[in-house]
């Protein structure tokens, strides 16, 4: 057995209302470990660096291939997915913290409900349900499909919201992820039939599109390289035009 150990410092808290505290762990090194397998090792043997038995660290994970977004946490100061955070590439001690822009449920587990609520707010889907078969929709040009595919890589991981200085307890800002989804679904030939409706959800109420302060951290932080700031600027143009249309224009907004 190897003598090498991995040192971890984990910011923990028992539940949503309790104070966070740090706990250190030393776990045996194995080759090709990632942060998830290190956390699994702690769960297998929940003993901290002082040799005291403690509770197992809680975290969230699902796909383990960076497409579900569930295992996002702050690793050595930067938000990212723990499944693709390889131990060999991280400076030790490895510092793990929950993304506290979101409510922390326990240890590294956060509640991303606000992101899913945002997707509902902007109708981030193509509405086709009805009482009869609507038949095939219009086709999408291949070049556009390839471009849209990049936007569709969003996994609602929350990293862009964590990086955004305007997403915090003092602001209602919806955040970059859901905004970019509006551009994606408005670009879809069938989804675009509800274009004005989606734009208006961004113009109505608090925390819409205009709360963006253009710090552009989101586009730098996005693990999927989604052009979030281009989406935001494109939506700024569309909502500007939509607002002119609503005020000066006709009696229909579609």
């Amino acid at each position, binding site marked *: 057995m190897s003598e090498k150990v991995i040192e971890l410092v984990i910011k923990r808290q028992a539940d949503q209302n309790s104070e966070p505290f740090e706990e250190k762990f030393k776990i045996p090194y194995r080759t090709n470990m990632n942060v998830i397998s290190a956390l699994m090792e702690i769960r297998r043997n929940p003993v901290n660096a002082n040799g005291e038995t403690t509770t197992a660290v809680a975290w969230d994970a699902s796909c383990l291939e960076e497409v579900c977004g569930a295992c996002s946490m702050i690793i050595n*100061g*930067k938000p990212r997915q723990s499944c693709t955070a390889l131990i060999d590439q991280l400076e030790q001690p490895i510092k793990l913290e929950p993304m506290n822009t979101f409510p922390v449920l326990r240890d590294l587990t956060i509640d991303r409900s606000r992101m899913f609520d945002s997707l509902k707010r902007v109708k981030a889907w193509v509405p086709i349900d009805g009482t009869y078969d609507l038949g095939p929709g219009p086709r999408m040009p291949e070049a556009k499909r390839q471009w849209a595919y990049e936007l569709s890589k969003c996994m609602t991981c929350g990293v862009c919201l964590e*990086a955004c*200085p*305007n997403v*915090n307890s*003092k*602001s209602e800002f919806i955040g970059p992820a859901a905004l970019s989804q509006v551009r994606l679904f408005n670009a879809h030939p069938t989804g675009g039939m509800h274009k004005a409706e989606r734009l208006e959800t*961004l*113009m*109505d*109420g*608090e*925390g*819409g*599109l*205009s*709360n963006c*302060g*253009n*710090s*552009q*951290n989101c586009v*730098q*932080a996005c693990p999927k390289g989604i*052009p979030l*700031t*281009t989406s*935001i*600027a*494109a*939506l*700024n*143009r*569309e*909502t*500007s*035009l939509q*607002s002119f249309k609503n005020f000066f224009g006709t009696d229909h907004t579609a």
Partner: protein
Amino acid sequence: MSTNREFFYRKLHSLLGVIPVGAFLIVHLTVNYFAVRGPEAYNQASHFMENLPFRYFLEITLIFLPLIFHAVYGLYIAFQAKHNTSTYSYFRNWMFRLQRITGVIVLIFVAWHVWETRIAAALGAEVNFDMMAEIVSNPFALILYIIGITATTFHFANGLWSFAITWGITVSPRSQQIATYATMAIFVALTFVGIRSILAFVG
């Protein structure tokens, strides 16, 4: 029609910063530059501005009301942000932070500047070369003026950059990059104009 006007207020805030407040800033800095040509030229230029027809109407609609809205709503925006430049030390994140810091500096500077000049004028003081020369004869006041002018030109130039995004003019990353260069050139040029003018009142 929504009862919440946030979208409208944000867009208005962005627009007013450029038109008329930004446009007024350029006029103001240009008139100040007459100081470089000496006291007489400066007095003539400021006298011309003072005697514009509809002066009070122009001042209220083109300067005071838009400026007050921009300042009050801007403070609300500035204090909504939770700065994180230590974790994300990207250029644009720093500009985001500086925009908010300079906004607050400009508000304090303009309040002081209006008190010393426009309100003093309303109370009977005469606005001329000597008035400014007297103010900046105090080295402390001169330093505050230089800081205030630089903060103002930065806030305006960088504000132009985000204006272009807010209104959907620059959408592509390339156009936003070029807008960064253009607005920073505007910052340097206006700062030169402002500081050269204020130094003309010294000695």
